[in-house]
């Protein structure tokens, strides 16, 4: 399963969950008195559009977006281009596989929480195969054996449980999101991810763990960004208002990802005769 082209950057903010909480609170504080709400009786269509866009924090979000773009231009994108175009493909493939393998527990728990034992089984099988046969996850042996990878996260789980996304939210560095998925990101990185959990739960974690987590978070960010270089360039090139186009594209992409989680469990198919 391909990583969705416009999926928010949403890498695991290991060790960043405190700042995340600050951002969410900040956003909540600024909520009042932004983007004017049209009167539903006077102009029902304008009102419908307002509801659909669902971005009461737009001025704040746009400011954060500008900050993110500066950060992206100066640091993240150059690193992503270096990673994609300069580093030898076998190396980046190994890195990508390792990062994916490290994410397995998060995917596994979310599969279970979504009531998808079939998908959880696949994730578990992949983790066992790749951690052993794949030499600690460097090699994705499971895909070659027919166990295809899928993603899952806690924002998706909350959606499957019936929680709405809430208003659009542009998170600093982390990119386009919404309150539900921002909470999901925090839960994924601090609770469902064993390494992240150790980092948070232990009062004085080992320096090695800390360093490892920072390195992993940074690499994850670059790896994810490298996968959407063309898609984002394309969207920017073919849009008049990049922010508005991105907001729409990310939402649609996210909805389609959530649909994937909502689908009924697939009963194991008998082997073809």
């Amino acid at each position, binding site marked *: 399963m391909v990583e969705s082209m416009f999926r928010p950057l949403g890498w695991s903010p290991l060790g960043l969950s405190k700042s995340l909480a600050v951002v969410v609170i900040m956003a909540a504080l600024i909520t009042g008195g932004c983007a004017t709400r049209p009167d539903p009786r006077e102009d029902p269509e304008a009102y419908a559009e307002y509801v659909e866009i669902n971005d009461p924090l737009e001025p704040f979000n746009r400011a954060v977006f500008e900050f993110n773009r500066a950060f992206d231009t100066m640091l993240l994108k150059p690193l992503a281009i270096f990673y994609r175009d300069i580093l030898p493909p076998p190396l980046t493939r190994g890195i990508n596989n390792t990062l994916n393998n490290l994410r397995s527990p998060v995917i596994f728990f979310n599969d279970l929480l979504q009531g998808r034992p079939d998908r959880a089984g696949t994730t578990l099988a992949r983790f066992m195969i790749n951690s052993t046969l794949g030499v600690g996850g460097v090699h994705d042996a499971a895909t070659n054996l027919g166990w295809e990878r899928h993603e899952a996260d806690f924002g998706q789980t909350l959606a499957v449980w019936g929680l709405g996304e809430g208003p659009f939210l542009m998170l600093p560095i982390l990119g386009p999101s919404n309150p539900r998925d921002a909470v999901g990101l925090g839960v994924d990185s601090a609770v469902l991810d064993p390494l992240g959990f150790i980092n948070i739960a232990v009062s004085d974690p080992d320096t090695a763990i800390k360093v490892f987590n920072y390195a992993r978070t940074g690499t994850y960010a670059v790896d994810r960004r490298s996968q959407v270089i063309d898609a984002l360039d394309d969207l920017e*090139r073919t*849009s008049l*208002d990049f922010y508005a*186009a991105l907001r729409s594209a990310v939402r649609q992409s996210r909805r389609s990802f959530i649909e994937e989680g909502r689908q009924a469990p697939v009963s194991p198919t008998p082997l073809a005769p």
Partner: protein
Amino acid sequence: MRFPHVVVATVFAAFSLVSLALPSSAMASTLAAGAQEFIQSIADETVGVLQDDALQIEDRTQKLGSLFNRHFAVEDIARFVLGRHWRSASEAERSNYVDLFRDFIVFGYAQRFGDFAGEQLRVRGASPVDESTAIVNSEIVRSRQQGNIRVDWRVVETNGTFQIHDVVVEGVSMAQTQRSDFAATIRQRGSVAGLNQALQQKVNQLREQLGIRS
């Protein structure tokens, strides 16, 4: 021997009933099959244009552009993308907008569309939405590591001719995204005339990037 009219009429009625009842499913599957064939033929045609090494960038863009114009329902898409603002726009603004939208889409997407269809596009199947619309499912085949990209085409049949009304890549609809984009632009610039200005700038910019003189 002559059949009484009643018999003829009954037989005729029975046949029409059969042909009417046979149908919705048979007709729908004909529609879906036709739509699927249509997308496949476009993919083949595009690969032909892209593999023609003799073509200069201008000719290639022009060929892709004409392919695009023929197979995409540009006017219908333009109208959908403008949404509620279509009604408030004047006749002149509308026609100006549709012309600009056509250029915008050709210069902005012809290249990408070429990239899409030029890679290995595997048409997987199609399903009818209503009596004239079908969704054709396809995917761009990439390496196992990269994973395939899901591309769905919204195809509408009018008088036996198929046209594309939307392209949905990994769940992201081109028309829907543009609709949001344009609505935001109209909100900022205050009018459809303002949107047309922005479109004109964009078209010039895209033309320049492609190295095409206007």
